[in-house]
C-alpha cells in the first residue's frame, strides 16, 4: 500500500494570478492594520452579532464590509451566514467579514437575500441611504452608546432598514484616544483552545460629544490567534453571544488582574465538531458596563411595549439632520437601570 501511494502520480495545479492577487490583498490588509485601525478583524464577528441583537426587530441584518456575498450555511441557532469576498481582477477573495440574517428562508429566499446584500452594499458605498432612526442607550452611571438606523431602497422598490454601529466621523477620534491610552477596560475575556490562548479586552472610548464606543481588542500580552477556522469562529461567537446558555459553567475564581481583584467566571463551549473552547471572563468594574445581549433583548421588548418612564423629549442634529428624541427610563428584570433615547427625524413620532 505504501509503495502504491509513494508511486502515485499526483495532479498539480498552480495559479500565478491567484498568488499575486492574494499576496497583494494580504499585505494591503496588513498595512491597513498597522496604519492604526487597531483591533483585529475577528471582533467584527462579535460586534456584528451584538449589533444584530441591539437592533431588535427594527432590523435583522448588519453589514460591515460589502462586496460579493456567498451563502456559507446556517448557525446552530438558525441564523443564515453569508460570507463576504472582495472582488479583484475578476476573482473573489474571501474575507473574515460576514452578514447574519434571521428568518425562515428557502433556497430561493437565500439567493434573493444574497442579491439584496450586494445591492445594499453598492448603495452604502454611494451613501445612497436615509438615516431614519437613532438610539442612545445608557446603563446607569455609564456614557451612552449610539446605534444608527439606515433605510435603503432597492431597485425593485423594496426597502430595508439596517442597524449599523456607524463610526462615520469617529474612526480618527478612536485612533487618537487609543494612542493616548485614553480608554477604559470594561471586561477581560480569555479563550483557550488546543493549548493556545487569546485574551480580548472590551475597551470603551468616550468621544468628544460624550457618547461611548465599545470595541473588543486583543490584549498584546495574549494575542492568540486561536487555531480556529472562520466557520469555527462564527460558531463560537454565536454560542458566546447569542446562545450563552449553551456554555457549561465551570465555576468562578478570585484573581488579581490589571491591578485589582476581580471575579473570573469560567465557561466551556463545545463546537459542533467537538472542539472545546474554555472561556474565562472578568468584569473589571461592575459599575462600568454595557448591556449584555440578553439585556438588550429585554430592553427592546420593554421599549416596544412602552413600559418605560418617559423623562423628556428634545431635539438634536445627527449627521446634519434634525431628530426629535424621546428619553425614557427602564428597569430590567435583574435590576439594571437603563436610559434609552429614541430619535426620529424631525417632529415624526
Amino acid at each position: 500500500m505504501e509503495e502504491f501511494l509513494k508511486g502515485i502520480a499526483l495532479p498539480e495545479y498552480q495559479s500565478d494570478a491567484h498568488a499575486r492577487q492574494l499576496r497583494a490583498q494580504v499585505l494591503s490588509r496588513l498595512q491597513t492594520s498597522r496604519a492604526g485601525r487597531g483591533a483585529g478583524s475577528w471582533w467584527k464577528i462579535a460586534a456584528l452579532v451584538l449589533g444584530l441583537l441591539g437592533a431588535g426587530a427594527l432590523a435583522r441584518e448588519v453589514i460591515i464590509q460589502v462586496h460579493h456575498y456567498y451563502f456559507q450555511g446556517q448557525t446552530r441557532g438558525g441564523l443564515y451566514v453569508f460570507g463576504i469576498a472582495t472582488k479583484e481582477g475578476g476573482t473573489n477573495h474571501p474575507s473574515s467579514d460576514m452578514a447574519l440574517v434571521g428568518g425562515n428562508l428557502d433556497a430561493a429566499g437565500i439567493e434573493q437575500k444574497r442579491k439584496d446584500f450586494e445591492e445594499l452594499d453598492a448603495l452604502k458605498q454611494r451613501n445612497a441611504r436615509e438615516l431614519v432612526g437613532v438610539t442612545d442607550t445608557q446603563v446607569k452611571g455609564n456614557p451612552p452608546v449610539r446605534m444608527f438606523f439606515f433605510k435603503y431602497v432597492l431597485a425593485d422598490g423594496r426597502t430595508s432598514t439596517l442597524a449599523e454601529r456607524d463610526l462615520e466621523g469617529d474612526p480618527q477620534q478612536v485612533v487618537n484616544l487609543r494612542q493616548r491610552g485614553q480608554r477604559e477596560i470594561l471586561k477581560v475575556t480569555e479563550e483557550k483552545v488546543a493549548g493556545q490562548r487569546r485574551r480580548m479586552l472590551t475597551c470603551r472610548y468616550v468621544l468628544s460629544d460624550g457618547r461611548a464606543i465599545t470595541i473588543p481588542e486583543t490584549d498584546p500580552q495574549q494575542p492568540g490567534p486561536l487555531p480556529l477556522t472562520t466557520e469555527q469562529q462564527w460558531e463560537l461567537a454565536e454560542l458566546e453571544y447569542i446562545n450563552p446558555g449553551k456554555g457549561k459553567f465551570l465555576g468562578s475564581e478570585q484573581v488579581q488582574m490589571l491591578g485589582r481583584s476581580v471575579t473570573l467566571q469560567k465557561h466551556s463551549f463545545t463546537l459542533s465538531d467537538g472542539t472545546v473552547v474554555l472561556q474565562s471572563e472578568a468584569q473589571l468594574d461592575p459599575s462600568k458596563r454595557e448591556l449584555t445581549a440578553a439585556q438588550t433583548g429585554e430592553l427592546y421588548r420593554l421599549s416596544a411595549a412602552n413600559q418605560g418612564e418617559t423623562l423628556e423629549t428634545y431635539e438634536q442634529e445627527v449627521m446634519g439632520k434634525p431628530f426629535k428624541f424621546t428619553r425614557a427610563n427602564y428597569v430590567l428584570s435583574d435590576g439594571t437601570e437603563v436610559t434609552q433615547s429614541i430619535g426620529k427625524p424631525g417632529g415624526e413620532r
Partner: protein
Amino acid sequence: MTLPQCLENFTEGAEEERALVLAAQRDTAAAGQLFDKYYPEIFRYVYHSTLDHAVTEDLTSNVFFSAFRHLGLFRWRRIPFRAWLYRIATNEVRMHYRRQKRISAANAGDVDPELSGAVSSADTLAAERDDYRLLQRALLGLGQKYRTVIVLRYFEGKSLSEICEITNKQEGTVKSQLHRGLAQLKDALLRAGLTLP
C-alpha cells in the same frame, strides 16, 4: 517526492523561520517574503485535499487571511509557523467538506458533493488517471482524520513529528490513524478492482 528532515533535526531552518516571522511582524516586505515562502506548499496541500481549482483558491485565501490577520501580534508558540499554517489549512478543508454535506442535505437527490466536487470537476479531468481517480474516491470514503494523515504523509511528504504538530496529536495516535487509514484505504481500493503492487 522527497521526505523533509524531521523538524527536531532541522534547527537551523526553525531559527530561520522564526527570524522571518519576527521580521514580518515589523516589516511588510518581510511579510511578503513569509507569504512567498509558504504559499506554494499550502496551496498544493489544499489542492491535493480537494482536487478543485476554485475551492483551492478560496480555502488558501482563507488560510492566509486568517494567519496574517494577527501576524503583528503573533508570539512563538509550541509549534513552528509552518505547522500552524498547515493546521489552519487542515481545518479549512475539513470545514469545506462539512459545508458541502450541509448543502447536499438541503438539496436532496444531488450527487454526493464530496465525490462530485473532488472528482468530476472539469478542471481536473484532464490531469486524472484512472488509478488516481479511484484513489481519491476511496480517500473521500475515509473518515476525515484518516484522510488528513494519509494526505500529509504520502502526498505532502510530512514526517511523523510534523504531522503530530499539525494535527496536535501524539505520535502513537498518528501512527494508529495511519495504520487504520491505510488498511481501510486498501480494502476500498481492492473492492474497486484496483490491483495493488
